[in-house]
């Protein structure tokens, strides 16, 4: 019977493409058209331009010292974000889910905020906090550190925008798993650290991995915040993304597109990594 759903392995109703009713076919066509327009076509355009330009454009990018420096800076920032927010994400996930303390609900909202705050506002916030007249400015002066238009500023901005990812993923997994295994470990005599190392951590591995890939992707792609706090000063605070921006401003389209291609290619790799992790998680269940 056309359109009648059958159950797939997970027990939810599924219809085969060959047996769709006219209504279902229209819906599918609409969806495919929409995804095509919004996602596929722009991606294809980029790929076409890339193929047109040929591998030469990539070589040009790598030959440009400013571009290399931009990539290097971006990668360093990404590494810092991975380590810092990776560690923090695990710790915070545990604290948020397993501890009970005053203000936990407030923290809930606070933790999700970086996802909703515009990157330029982030940059501005750090500028105001550490710049002239800012609350922390005297401390910086005393310590001899520069935050605005300097590397530390970029670090802070990157940490801010990548902050929620590992935390959320770890928290979701912890909630889903429940506390049974940890309780069992305690009755068997394990100390808190042993419980974490032997029982909790292996169980959150995939969630953590997923969050780390998202962190990496976000750190690589961060633009607005590093632009504002860093000023995109070539050779000092110019990341890969701000390199593209500056190149566009200076009408150096080839350089801009070249770098954009590199970042786009990296994104595809991240996407595949995310997919792989999802599959591994699915297999575990």
């Amino acid at each position, binding site marked *: 019977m056309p359109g009648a759903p059958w159950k797939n392995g997970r027990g939810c109703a599924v219809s085969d493409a060959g047996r769709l009713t006219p209504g279902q076919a229209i819906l599918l066509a609409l969806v495919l058209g929409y995804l095509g327009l919004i996602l596929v076509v722009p991606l294809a355009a980029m790929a076409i331009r890339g193929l047109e330009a040929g591998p030469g454009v990539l070589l040009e990018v790598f030959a440009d010292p400013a571009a290399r420096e931009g990539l290097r800076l971006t990668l360093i920032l990404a590494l810092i974000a991975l380590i810092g927010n990776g560690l923090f994400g695990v710790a915070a996930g545990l604290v948020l889910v397993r501890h009970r303390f005053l203000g936990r609900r407030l923290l809930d909202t606070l933790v999700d905020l970086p996802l909703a705050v515009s990157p330029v506002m982030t940059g501005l916030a750090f500028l105001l906090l550490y710049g002239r007249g800012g609350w922390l400015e005297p401390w910086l002066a005393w310590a001899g550190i520069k935050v605005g238009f300097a590397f530390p500023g970029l670090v802070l901005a990157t940490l801010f925008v990548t902050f929620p990812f590992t935390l959320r993923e770890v928290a979701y997994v912890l909630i889903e798993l429940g506390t049974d295994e940890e*309780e069992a470990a305690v009755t068997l005599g394990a100390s808190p650290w042993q419980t974490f190392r032997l029982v909790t951590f292996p169980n959150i591995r995939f969630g953590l991995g997923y969050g780390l890939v998202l962190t990496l992707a976000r750190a690589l792609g961060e633009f607005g915040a590093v632009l504002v706090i860093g000023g995109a000063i070539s050779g000092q605070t110019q990341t890969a993304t701000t390199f593209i921006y500056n190149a566009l401003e200076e009408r150096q389209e080839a350089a801009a597109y070249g770098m954009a291609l590199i970042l786009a290619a990296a994104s595809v790799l991240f996407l595949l990594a995310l997919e792989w992790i999802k599959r591994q998680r699915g297999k575990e269940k």
Partner: protein
Amino acid sequence: MSIRVSHLNKRFGSGAGQFVAVDDVCLEVESGELVAFLGPSGSGKSTILRIIAGLETADSGSVYFSGQAADHLHARSRGVGFVFQHYALFRHMTVAENIAFGLRVQGKARAEQQRRVHELLDLMGLAGLGERYPGQLSGGQRQRVALARALAPEPQVLLLDEPFGAVDARVREELRHWLRRLHDEVHVTSIFVTHDQEEAFSVADKVIVINRGHVEQAASPAAILDHPATEFVARFIGDANVYEGVTHGGYVAVGKLQVPADGLPDGTPVSAVLRFYDLKFWKEEQGIARVVRTMTLGDRVKVEAVIDDGPVIYSQFPRRSSLLTGIEPGCRIHIEVTLARLYPQNAAAGVTVTAA
């Protein structure tokens, strides 16, 4: 190791939504005993078990292990083996690693760990499954691994929280045999929590009936059956008919059935508990009840009848029983009450047990 619980209290929540889980509970378990905590859902039996294990803390009261107060001891230092209803096996470790866990965190040598693991795999009938992962095992196997894991560090006490609740009926019976055999071999003081009477009675030396956070009775299965201490126990244990009525002229009327109420003043409101096996039915033209249906349940037959001017009444007989001769839907029967338990519903004293 013996366990004594003294005046334990525990509340959950606060204000209007507060729920008293454990209400002034006192109980004792002798060294080497296998005891069941039996009670309906929400009766607090699991909470008491978890407090003994140290997984929860009581609001007040104490737990003593062999006479020593254990309240200050953290769960990891109590030497308690705990088996969870849903196994709680470490999903990323093999069966062998699961079982070895308790020894591993204590820092025992590898050789020692392996020896003990093999010992337990054999004991629990899991030989050859050491390298499998929990996900690859059946429910019954998983629970046996959980048992083995809890026993590996040679605990002083074994606590099981509805250990057979998550498996199906046939496997449950097998696991009960395992537990009983295990206890016979290892002799570790054990407490298991269940809501299943048959399970409690078939496995345990002593049963502690718990309802609404307090202990109703603690005795051997036979004692509980023959001498239920409270109305709850009488109603909860064994199959019974329960009726409300008021005494009059030395009897309680259940429809046309007169149940003797010796010793109770007239006008006392009572709950009458009539166990199936304390009743006799036989076919009689002038009988006071009419059979509605008979249900053949394997080796027993359950008879449902309506008492004239009264409620429905049930009883059960072995299939070959001569009492069943001629009993079929529509025929009339006589009812004899061998033993009735009457519980006054006002402030008047305790139980009245009357025989016809």
